[in-house]
């Protein structure tokens, strides 16, 4: 008889070990999937995880891409992790990301073609505000009417996508774009362009913000009363109530924080790597960030590493598409599997396995 016995406190060793085991299991399962698709599994895994960093032909292009992709993932995941810790489920980061991008781009395009050092900071504020505003909808509905924030935040993704399609063809359309949908390219607008801070490193302001967010959140969660309240709310909601923690304020804070960070990520993306608002501007970062948050064990440093790893699968996946003709969807599946394996191995941090009948 195998029994599971609840641990008094989560095991530290397994907390660190399980993500690594999950990655290995995903590689094995992914390898089987690649073999089923008729590709050499070892070659595929090598192309995804090794070549983007170390192959002399690709590394010079791929390495900067790593930060470009990891930046938004980390930024969004850090925000989400705080809410997840408190048991507040914002799964609509994709929508907040879109709204941040729209607000950020709109702030710049409103004053085009004026040049000023204040434009970029204004865009940052506008982007964060757009994401925050979009997250306030589920927050207010949850605190005022007890409406489920999971469903509302998720459904607002579809609404945001419609708004994106609308502004790309209307409000923000490039007047000099010969009628094509899409806004002006912010990369050609020096005051608004979120360029690389260090040439050829991929390090743009979004990546720097992601690092700041990691440090900020780490300090908040370990040293500040707000972080303590978040953890208390997640682990012992009743105790939190007795201790006088305001549920309303915490919900508003968690959703607002994650929304603002997702909005920032969207703004940095549209002002930098993407350059313009297009109908299909969003690429699923908001959803992948959920995987990143869990893979990083909802811990800021873990999320930093998980974001880099997940960025690697994006770049490696594109490379594998190019080199092996691997379907793009297989990477999506790969990432989904990673989350499931992670959740499966998660049990060993909270339970220990006992053989034999109960005493």
């Amino acid at each position, binding site marked *: 008889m195998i029994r599971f016995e609840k641990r008094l406190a989560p095991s530290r060793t397994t907390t660190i070990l399980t993500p690594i085991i999950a990655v290995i299991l995903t590689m094995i399962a992914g390898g089987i999937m690649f073999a089923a698709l008729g590709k050499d599994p070892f070659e595929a895994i090598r192309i995804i995880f090794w070549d983007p960093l170390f192959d002399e032909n690709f590394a010079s292009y791929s390495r900067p891409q790593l930060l470009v992709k990891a930046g938004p993932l980390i930024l969004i995941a850090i925000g989400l992790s705080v809410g997840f810790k408190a048991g507040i489920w914002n799964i609509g980061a994709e929508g907040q990301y879109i709204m941040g991008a729209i607000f950020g781009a709109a702030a710049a395009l409103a004053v085009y073609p004026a040049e000023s050092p204040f434009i970029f900071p204004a865009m940052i504020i506008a982007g964060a505000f757009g994401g925050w505003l979009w997250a306030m909808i589920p927050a207010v509905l949850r605190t005022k009417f007890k409406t489920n924030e999971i469903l509302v935040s998720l459904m607002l993704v579809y609404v945001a996508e419609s*708004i994106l399609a609308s502004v790309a063809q*209307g409000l923000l359309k490039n007047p000099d774009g010969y009628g094509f949908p899409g806004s002006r390219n912010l990369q050609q607008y020096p005051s608004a362009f979120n360029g690389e801070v260090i040439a050829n490193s991929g390090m743009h302001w979004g990546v720097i913000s992601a690092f700041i967010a990691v440090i900020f959140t780490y300090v908040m969660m370990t040293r500040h009363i707000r972080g303590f309240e978040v953890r208390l709310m997640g682990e012992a909601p009743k105790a939190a109530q007795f201790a006088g923690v305001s549920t309303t304020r915490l919900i508003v804070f968690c959703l607002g924080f994650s929304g603002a960070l997702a909005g920032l990520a969207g703004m940095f993306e549209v002002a930098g790597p993407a350059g313009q608002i297009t109908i299909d501007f969003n690429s699923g970062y908001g959803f992948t960030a959920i995987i990143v948050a869990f893979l990083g064990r909802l811990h800021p440093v873990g999320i930093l590493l998980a974001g880099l790893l997940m960025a690697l699968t994006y770049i490696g996946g594109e490379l594998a598409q190019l080199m092996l003709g691997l379907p793009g*969807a297989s990477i999506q599946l790969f990432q989904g*599997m990673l*989350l499931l394996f992670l959740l*499966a191995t998660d049990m060993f941090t909270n*339970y220990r396995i006992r053989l034999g009948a109960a005493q």
Partner: protein
Amino acid sequence: MDLPGISPVLLIASLMVSATPILLAAIGETVVEKSGVLNLGVEGMMIVGAVVGFITAVNTTSPALGFVTAAIAGALLSTIFATLVLFFKSNQVATGLGLTLVGLGISALLGKPYEGIKSPTLQAFEIPVLSDIPVLGPMLFSHDPMVYISILIVAAVWFVLKYTRIGLVLRAVGENHDAAHALGYKVIRIRFMAIMFGGACAGLGGAYISLVRVPQWTEGMTAGAGWIALAIVVFASWKPWRALLGAYLFGGITVLQLNLQAAGVAIPVEYLSMSPFLITILVLVIISAKGNHGAPASLGRLFHASN
């Protein structure tokens, strides 16, 4: 405002068709949630049902077989969720989400070679006598069999939950799993079955989209239907007949906005296509503002039998 081409008969007839996928998924999820489990993977199970049903129907030229395999595929996928949640005691929200991501990935992978093909679709099944009634006949009684099967499933779920022993046990497990466990009911086994039933229903719903409503395969074609089904379960206060009402209301909105798009009303297409989601949110708010509305007490809570 002049709206040519929107006839009430056609509107109600197409409303039933457009509501059926959501209804199927919602009734399955009602059973899952009644047993105390929140499966957010509906969207993933639907899209896998859609692609598997489509592939089967194209290869065998039998849409009926497509529906059968879609239900099996949905149920199989849900066993991943059931295993993780029930045996590995993982977080239900995260696992459901993971299931959706995996489902979207699998379906895109499987469906790639089938893009742009038309599938054989279900023939309309005209209920004898009833379908000859003027107006009501073409409106309500001349649909394909799946429309009626979905209503029959609703009736069956209602009957089983309300009047049978197994339904009572299922509800007991959902209301208080510790008490049910103490009484000797197999909490895990009952939930596992409920989750599989939910998966099968979601698979059927997905196949209805790819085989009847569209009928074609495009990547990500469920486009949020699974999430709306989840909202309808809340809207319905976990009651089967109200799920029917909710799905048909929602179907009505969808059809109406599509008709308005086609009629070229002066509202931009984007605003019309976001309206179903906005209205769903609005309805959710109204329902939840009314306070406690019969959510199973153990919904989403972790069950660990401690000796």
